[in-house]
C-alpha cells in the first residue's frame, strides 16, 4: 500500500541549492495549473503510437485507460469486475462470453458506440495480419460476433478464463467506422475513444494534450473527471523532469529513482508517494541454440549467476521501499503466481564460483548485459557478476531497441522489467516470455505446455497447479533470474490529490486539486 515519504531522517546532505529551491518554490506561488484546473504530467518515453494496441510501454497503457474505455472495469481497490461499456455479461459456453452493451455512449468524434464497435475492434486486433504490437493481449481472441445492436459475443480460441481481466485492461474499444476508415495510423494521428478525456492535440515525440470529455457517460464506474485539462509531455531526461517538478513546471512525475524521491520529499511544495507495483524485474537468459553467449546454455552457469547477485542488498540499498525479492517470474498478487516449491538462490559468491568452475568457466567468461532502465541496478548486478568472474558488458538503450536485440537473438542477458499491462493474472506475465512468442529466448516445450494449460483451463485449481509447475520448472532450470518487484515513486505538487495503485496505472479521472 502506498506510504507517504515525509522527511525521512537522512544521513545525506541536502545541498544549499535544494534548500534554496524549496524555499523559493514554496514561497512563490506558481500554481498556474491549479488555477486553470490543469494537470501537467511529464513522462520519459514517447510512445511509438498512441493507439493502445500499437505500443507496449507504460505511458501507452496510461493514455489508453484515460482516453478509451473497456467493456469491463476492474475496481482499483476491491478488484471486483464492474460493467463499463458493457452493462453485464454472461458465460455462454467455455469459449463464449456474451455482453450486453451500454446504450447512448458516444465516441469523442460523435460516433455511436454499439456492437459494431466491439466486433470491428476485436476482429481487427485479433487478426495477426494487422500486426498488433501487444500480441499477448489479443491472441486469445478468436472473434467477436454481433448478436444485436447492443449485444455481442466474444469467442476465445481456447478456454481462456483470464478473458474478463484482459477486457478490463488493455483491450480498449475503438469506433468502428473511424477505425475502418483511418486505421491504426490515423488513430495515432488523431486518437478517438469514449474515455473520460479526449485528445485535443498530439505532437509525436513531444506532447499530448487532453481535455475533460464533457459528454462522458454518467454511469461509468470511472466517474466524472474533475480536472479540466491534462498535458502530458515527453521529457527523456529524468533530471529535466525533476527540474520541472522542482521549478513547478510539472505537477506530476513518476518512476522517480529512490534517492531522488527521498530528497524530493524534503522539498516543501512537493509530495512523494510510493508503493510497490506489479512491475517485476528479472534477468532474462538467452539459452537458445543461437545464443551469443554459449555458456548460458549450461544450467550450472545460470545457477551460478543466480547465486552471484546479491538481490537483498540491491533491494535494500538501491531499489527502495515497497520492493521485495522475487523467486518466480510473476507478481505475487497475480492469479496463479506462487513461489511454492521453487528453489531459493541465496547470495553465495563462493558457490557461484564453484558452479562456474564445474561448468568449465573457472576463469569466468565475457558476455553482454542489455538494459533499458534503472541503470544503477544493472551496474550493481554487473559488479556482483564481476566478483565471480563474469565480465558482463553493459549495453544500455531504449526499450524498443533492447526488445529488438532480444527478439533477434543478440542479447545474451537482459535486465528486463514487466508490468503485465496491469493485468492481475499470471497469463499476462510469465507466458509472455515462455510460450515461444517473440520474447521467448528459452523455448522449453514443457514450460510452454504447462503455461498454456494454465491459461486455457477454466478450473482455478487446475490453473493454479499448472502455473505453479511451470514456475517451479523455470526456477529449477534457472531459465531466468527473478529479481525483485519494482516500487514506483511519484513526485507531485503538494496541492494535487491522487492515489497510487500497485497496477502502476495513473487514474487522472480521479485526480483533483486540493
Amino acid at each position: 500500500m502506498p506510504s507517504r515519504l515525509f522527511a525521512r531522517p537522512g544521513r545525506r546532505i541536502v545541498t544549499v541549492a535544494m534548500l534554496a529551491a524549496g524555499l523559493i518554490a514554496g514561497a512563490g506561488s506558481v500554481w498556474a495549473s491549479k488555477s486553470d484546473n490543469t494537470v501537467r504530467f511529464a513522462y520519459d518515453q514517447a510512445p511509438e503510437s498512441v493507439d493502445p494496441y500499437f505500443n507496449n510501454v507504460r505511458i501507452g497503457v496510461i493514455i489508453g485507460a484515460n482516453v478509451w474505455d473497456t467493456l469491463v472495469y476492474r475496481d482499483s481497490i476491491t478488484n471486483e469486475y464492474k460493467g463499463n461499456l458493457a452493462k453485464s455479461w454472461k458465460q455462454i459456453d467455455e469459449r463464449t462470453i456474451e455482453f450486453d452493451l451500454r446504450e447512448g455512449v458516444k465516441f469523442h468524434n460523435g460516433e455511436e458506440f454499439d456492437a459494431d464497435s466491439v466486433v470491428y475492434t476485436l476482429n481487427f486486433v485479433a487478426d495477426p495480419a494487422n500486426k498488433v504490437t501487444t500480441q499477448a493481449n489479443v491472441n486469445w481472441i478468436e472473434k467477436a460476433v454481433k448478436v444485436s445492436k447492443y449485444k455481442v459475443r466474444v469467442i476465445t480460441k481456447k478456454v481462456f478464463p483470464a478473458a474478463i481481466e484482459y477486457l478490463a485492461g488493455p483491450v480498449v474499444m475503438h469506433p468502428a467506422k473511424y477505425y475502418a476508415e483511418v486505421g491504426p495510423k490515423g488513430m495515432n494521428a488523431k486518437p478517438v475513444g469514449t474515455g473520460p478525456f479526449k485528445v485535443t492535440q498530439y505532437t509525436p515525440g513531444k506532447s499530448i494534450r487532453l481535455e475533460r470529455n464533457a459528454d462522458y457517460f454518467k454511469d461509468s464506474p470511472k466517474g466524472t473527471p474533475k480536472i479540466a485539462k491534462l498535458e502530458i509531455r515527453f521529457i527523456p531526461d529524468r533530471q529535466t523532469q525533476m527540474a520541472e517538478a522542482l521549478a513547478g513546471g510539472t505537477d506530476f512525475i513518476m518512476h522517480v529513482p529512490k534517492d531522488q524521491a527521498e530528497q524530493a520529499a524534503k522539498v516543501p511544495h512537493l509530495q512523494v508517494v510510493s508503493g510497490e507495483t506489479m512491475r517485476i524485474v528479472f534477468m532474462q537468459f538467452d539459452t537458445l541454440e543461437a545464443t551469443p553467449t554459449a555458456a548460458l546454455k549450461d544450467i550450472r552457469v545460470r545457477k551460478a549467476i543466480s547465486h552471484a547477485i546479491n538481490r537483498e542488498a540491491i533491494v535494500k540499498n538501491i531499489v527502495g521501499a515497497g520492493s521485495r525479492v522475487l523467486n518466480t517470474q510473476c507478481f505475487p498478487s497475480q492469479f496463479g503466481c506462487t513461489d511454492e516449491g521453487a528453489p531459493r538462490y541465496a547470495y553465495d559468491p563462493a558457490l557461484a564460483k564453484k558452479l562456474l568452475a564445474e561448468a568449465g568457466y573457472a576463469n569466468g567468461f565475457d558476455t553482454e548485459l542489455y538494459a533499458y532502465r534503472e541503470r544503477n541496478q544493472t551496474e550493481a548486478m554487473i559488479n556482483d557478476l564481476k566478483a565471480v568472474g563474469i565480465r558482463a558488458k553493459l549495453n544500455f538503450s531504449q526499450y524498443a531497441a533492447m526488445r529488438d536485440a532480444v527478439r533477434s537473438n543478440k542479447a545474451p542477458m537482459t535486465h528486463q522489467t514487466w508490468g503485465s499491462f496491469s493485468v492481475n493474472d499470471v497469463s499476462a506475465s510469465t507466458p509472455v516470455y515462455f510460450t515461444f512468442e517473440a520474447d521467448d529466448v528459452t523455448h522449453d516445450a514443457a514450460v510452454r505446455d504447462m503455461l498454456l494449460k494454465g491459461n486455457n483451463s477454466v478450473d482455478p485449481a487446475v490453473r493454479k497447479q499448472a502455473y505453479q509447475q511451470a514456475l517451479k520448472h523455470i526456477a529449477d532450470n534457472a531459465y531466468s533470474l527473478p529479481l525483485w518487484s519494482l516500487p514506483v515513486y511519484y513526485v507531485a505538487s503538494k496541492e494535487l490529490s491522487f492515489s497510487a495503485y500497485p497496477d502502476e496505472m495513473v487514474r487522472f479521472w480521479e485526480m483533483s486539486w486540493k
Partner: protein
Amino acid sequence: MHIYMLKRLGLAVLVALAVSMIAFGLLRLSGDPAIAIAGEGATQADIVLVRQTYGFDRPLPVQYAEWLGRTLRGDLGESIYFKTPAAPLILSKLQTTLVLGLLSLAFALVISVPLGVLAALYRNSWIDRLCLGLAVIGQALPNFFFALLLIMLFSIVLHWLPVSGSDSWQHFIMPTVALGYYAAPAFMRLIRAGMIEVLDADYIRTARAKGLPASTVIFKHALRNAVVPVVALTAVQLGYLLGGSVVVETIFALDGLGYLAYQSITFKDFPVMQSIVLLLSVIYVVLTLASDVANAWLDPRIRVA
C-alpha cells in the same frame, strides 16, 4: 563574378552528392534495412517482400540512384518508430531548430562583436586579456554541463525561466545561451584579429583625419572591413550550431530537429536519422554557398570586378 559563382555552385552540388552517398551508406551500415523496415515479428516472407518492394535486392548503385531520386522528390521514407512519413515529421521540427540556431548565432554575435571590438581597441591591455580569458574559459566549459548549471540557477533556484519545452519565447532563452556561448569565442577572436589588422590600416587614419567621431570610424570604417571573414565563419558556425543542437535540445526537451535526431538514434529509426544527417549537411552546403555570395557582395573588389 558569375564564373566564380558557377564554380562554387558546382562544388556545392558535388559536395551534396558526396554527402548523400555517405548518408545512404550510413543506413547500410546498420545491416539489412529490410529487417528494420519490416518491423519486429515480421516473417521471412514479409522481409523478402519488403526487400523486393524497396529494391534492396538490386545492386547498390541502382538502389542509391533510386533512393536519391525519391529523396529529391521529397520522399524520405517512413519513420520506423513513429510510423509516419519522415519528411513532414522532420520539417515540422525544422522550424524550432532553425529558430534556436539563429537565436544562438545572434546571441554569439551580440556578445562577441562588442568584446572583440573592445579587445582590439584596447589590445594588450587588461581589457584585452579579460576578453581573451573569457574566450578560453568559455571554450573549456562543456555545453551540456553549462546547460545543467543554467537550469539549476535560473529554473530551480531563481524560478525565472521554464526548464523545458518550446511553447513560449522564454523557453528559448536558456537553450539559446547554452548553444550560443560556445560559438562566441571563435567570433570574438576573429573580430579581434580582424579589427586589429583593420585599425592599423591607412584608411582608418584617413577617416580619423576627416574628423569623424570614433563610433563612425570603428563601426562604419573598421568593422565593415573586419566582418568579411566573420561572415564566412557565421555560415560555418550556424552549421555547427544546428548539429550541436542535439545535446541542447535533448537537455531542454526542445521539440526540434536535434531532439528528433537523438530520439531517432536511440530508437534506431534509420530513415529519420539518415534524413536528418542529409538535411543538416545540405543546409550547411547551402549556408557556405550563401556565405560565399555574401562575401563577394561585401567585398567590392570581388563584386565590382
